[in-house]
């Protein structure tokens, strides 16, 4: 029987403000426990929250980047529940009136065993601002639980998608696109180990065309690999359960990454009644057009806009444009390199996506850790473009730049990698070759054009690889024709 997997994601992105969403305490990661918790974070009697403008601006940036409606009036509500790492006994969040309304994100799903790569539009339901809780440390204290409130009050933007994804691969592609976007627009550092980007996946299965099945929510997936594994396991578990005549109960589940399985944490029956109501300590959040436009003015050019420009203005393929805009750092690297050789977009693209990417992959680095600067790369490409060095020689220059650094022109000079472009010298070489190989010349002249390659090989060897191949071909053709 055919099954369709239906996935929606809720992603918590930690906003990159230096202070907390409702207090002035620092949000820096890794401090001694409870050092970065002020009176407000500790929920001392009498303290009050004050909204951090920077967190609101980051939410607006996100809304603009996904073409979403930005609510002129949104409301902070209290989500009430008791837990030791939730100092107030409620979390300040947004409930029925979130700051960001419907938007969308275009994702690129890579090649799978099933077929070709494809694009897909995933609808976003909403995004809302809220504060993070502290951390409960169960391991470090024998028979007790330690509470670290440094994280309490850290600003989060929870981004909720529609159940538009149909495979783990799509869910991962969506999460990666979102991850790239929040870093692109500078609202989140994207550090998944430190919990800056955490995914909850709502998974259900159904027969194609049927009503949505009952979903189970997998909580707190903090790597793309776990996201993929957890969804695959969960979907298969649901299919097996249904095929064996069972039913799915709505539940919250955890993914055990050691065993690769999901297990239920709580069922719908023991779900909390959070008793949401508007927080009377905070006024409704009003955002006028002026503020939105001011924020829009600080946004970098977005990936989709760059892609269109690369295709239309630079003549790159859609594939190249997609790849070069996979991250803002990559696009910046490309554009800075292109500044050195403005007419050579394709050359820049080929080198970045070819030799540079291959070298980075080999050493497991990302583009920000590239030992060659865009300026160095651009200068080298300039020498390819103006015929100073051949592509073969350029690979030599690139190797040296990568391992030792330096100036491309100096490397070309010292290593003697300049192409031979002195026509007289090349003609003399060709004359010698023709004189020394009369039999092959005769063959060529009798119509065996394949022999031409033989002459090219000899000529390049005689020039020690420095001859400009195009020029050398032209001279050879002319002389051989007699």
């Amino acid at each position, binding site marked *: 029987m055919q099954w369709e997997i239906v996935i929606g994601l809720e992603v918590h992105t930690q906003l990159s403000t230096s202070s907390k969403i409702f207090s002035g305490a620092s949000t820096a990661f890794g401090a001694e426990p409870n050092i970065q918790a002020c009176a407000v974070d500790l929920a001392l009697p*009498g303290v009050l929250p*004050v909204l951090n403008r920077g967190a609101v601006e980051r939410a607006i940036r996100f809304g603009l980047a996904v073409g979403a409606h930005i609510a002129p009036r949104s409301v902070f509500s209290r989500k009430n529940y008791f837990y030791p790492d939730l100092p107030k006994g409620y979390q300040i969040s947004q409930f029925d009136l979130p700051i960001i309304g419907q938007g969308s994100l275009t994702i690129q799903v890579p090649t799978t065993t099933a077929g070709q790569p494809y694009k897909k539009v995933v609808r976003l339901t909403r995004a809302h601002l809220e504060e993070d809780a502290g951390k409960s440390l169960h391991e470090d204290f024998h028979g007790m639980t330690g509470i670290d409130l440094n994280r309490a009050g850290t600003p989060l933007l929870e981004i909720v998608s529609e159940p538009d994804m149909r495979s783990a691969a799509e869910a991962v592609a969506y999460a990666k696109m979102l991850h790239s976007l929040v870093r692109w627009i500078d609202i989140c550092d994207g550090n998944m180990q430190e919990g800056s980007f955490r995914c909850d996946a709502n998974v259900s299965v159904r027969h194609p065309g049927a009503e949505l099945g009952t979903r189970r929510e997998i909580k707190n997936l903090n790597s793309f690999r776990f996201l993929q594994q957890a969804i695959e396991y969960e979907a298969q578990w649901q299919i097996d359960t249904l095929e064996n005549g069972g039913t799915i109960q709505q539940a919250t589940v955890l993914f055990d990454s050691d065993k690769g399985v999901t297990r239920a944490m709580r069922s719908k029956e023991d779900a909390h009644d959070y008793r949401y109501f508007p927080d009377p300590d905070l006024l409704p959040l009003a955002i006028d057009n002026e503020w939105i436009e001011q924020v829009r003015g600080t946004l970098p050019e977005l990936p989709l806009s760059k892609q269109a420009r690369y295709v239309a203005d630079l003549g790159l393929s859609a594939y190249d444009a997609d790849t070069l805009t996979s991250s803002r750092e990559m696009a910046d690297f490309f554009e800075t390199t292109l500044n050195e050789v403005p007419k050579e977009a394709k050359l820049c693209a080929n080198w970045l996506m070819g030799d540079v990417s291959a070298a980075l992959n080999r050493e497991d680095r990302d583009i920000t850790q590239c030992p060659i600067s865009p300026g160095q790369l651009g200068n080298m490409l300039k020498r390819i473009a103006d015929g100073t060095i051949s592509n073969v020689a350029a690979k030599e220059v690139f190797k040296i730049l990568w391992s030792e650094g330096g100036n491309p022109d100096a490397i070309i000079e010292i290593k003697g990698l300049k192409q031979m472009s002195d026509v007289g010298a090349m003609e003399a070489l060709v004359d010698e070759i023709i004189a020394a190989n009369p039999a092959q010349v005769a063959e060529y002249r009798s119509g065996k054009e394949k022999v031409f390659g033989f002459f090219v090989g000899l000529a390049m060897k005689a020039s020690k690889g420095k001859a400009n191949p195009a020029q050398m071909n032209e001279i050879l053709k002319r002389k051989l024709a007699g």
Partner: protein
Amino acid sequence: MLNSSLLQLGAALRSKKISSVELTQLYLQRITALNSKLNAYITVNEEMSLVQARAADVQLTQSKTHALTGIPIAQKDIFCARDWRTTCGSKMLSNFIAPYDAHVIEQFNSVGAVNLGKTNMDEFAMGSSNETSYFGHVKNPWNNNAVPGGSSGGSAAAVSAHLCAAATGTDTGGSIRQPAALCGISGLKPTYGVVSRYGMIAFASSLDQAGPMARSAEDLALLLNVMAGFDERDSTSLQRDTEDYTRDLNKPLNGLRIGLPKEFFAAGLSADVAQAIEASIAEYKKLGASVVDISLPNSHLSIPVYYVLAPAEASSNLSRYDGVRYGYRTPEYTNLADMYEKSRAQGFGEEVKRRIMIGTYVLSHGYYDAYYLQAQKIRRLIAQDFVEAFKQCDVIMGPTTPTTAFNLAEKNDDPVQMYLSDTYTIAVNLAGLPGMSIPAGFGSNGLPVGLQIIGNYFDEARMLNVAHQYQQVTDWHTSTPQHIEV
């Protein structure tokens, strides 16, 4: 000296007739002598008060002084004051030493006023008789069998019995005005947002407002000058130009239009209170005011609306008292849930628990729309009533309470009867308006009657003017409980 106004005390301090240390000691001695009888203070800390008094005396030798420099003020124990035990009248916070100052405390400190001690109050400000305090009930200085009112009963009793020069209170549904009326003093609840709530322990955030309690309108104006002002740490604090609330005190009242809501003079109002209020209205007419009959048609819904909204907010505001970080924790427990349950069951009193339960219920899934949302809608209607009323009048007057002070334990078995003693004050909080109570005579049992004056938003200066002019031609506010030696 003890009968002096704040201005007179200030003059005496500046002319060195008395030092702040001497004045502070005078009050501390009275507290030592009388507090065991009245129980108006929860915490007195002689040394900390005298440190401030000594600093004030130094300040008084310099040219830059404030009207309140060196004057001992009692602080309701709802305001966090650094290094002071701050209990909010609860066992839950009976061991809590505040590590920071509330905005109100900071303001008084900044002008060199002396914190004389922390006054008794209903637990978490939930009560109308001061009987819910974990630290025992306060007695009314006029009659020790009567309640002082609540929740700012300790402050009201302290002012009435001259155990301080003036005091602070907070008012969520009448907690400044009702005890002021019952103890025969003056009290003002400002427009919501005029005084920062930062550091004031929350009961119902959308209703709570701090204000002054004193022996005259003039004193209230001086105190409000210090308490009011924008504070960026409270998002509901209003950013407005600084006002001098004494500026209109001496304006004549010719042409003043007084609105008398018929709902405030209907069944439920005792005859002696009605008589005293009518006499004060007659006095106002003599001062040149005219009277307009008005109606607040939704005011009868104030109590039901209040007892949905205030407990809803309180149930959430009091969730932080969980025994984890500070405050009371049960000595024995088996697991986390048990620790929460026992700490809260043992740390909170009956009335607080009742309101947490009501609040939790009205916010619960399936009940929210019927209770909380409905109450919010009616709250807007109640506020709208006042908007209409103020088209016809400048101030609204009526009784502060339906009766004079009732006896201790009289209403303990019936919470609804207790809630009804705030029937005339609650609508003002729901609308966010300023309201005050001033002494207006005595009832048949010899206990004080309070006249309530309700103003339009930000009309505190006018209300103080209206009260002050009355106090120029009457002496109810200077009466002192007979058996309190002054």
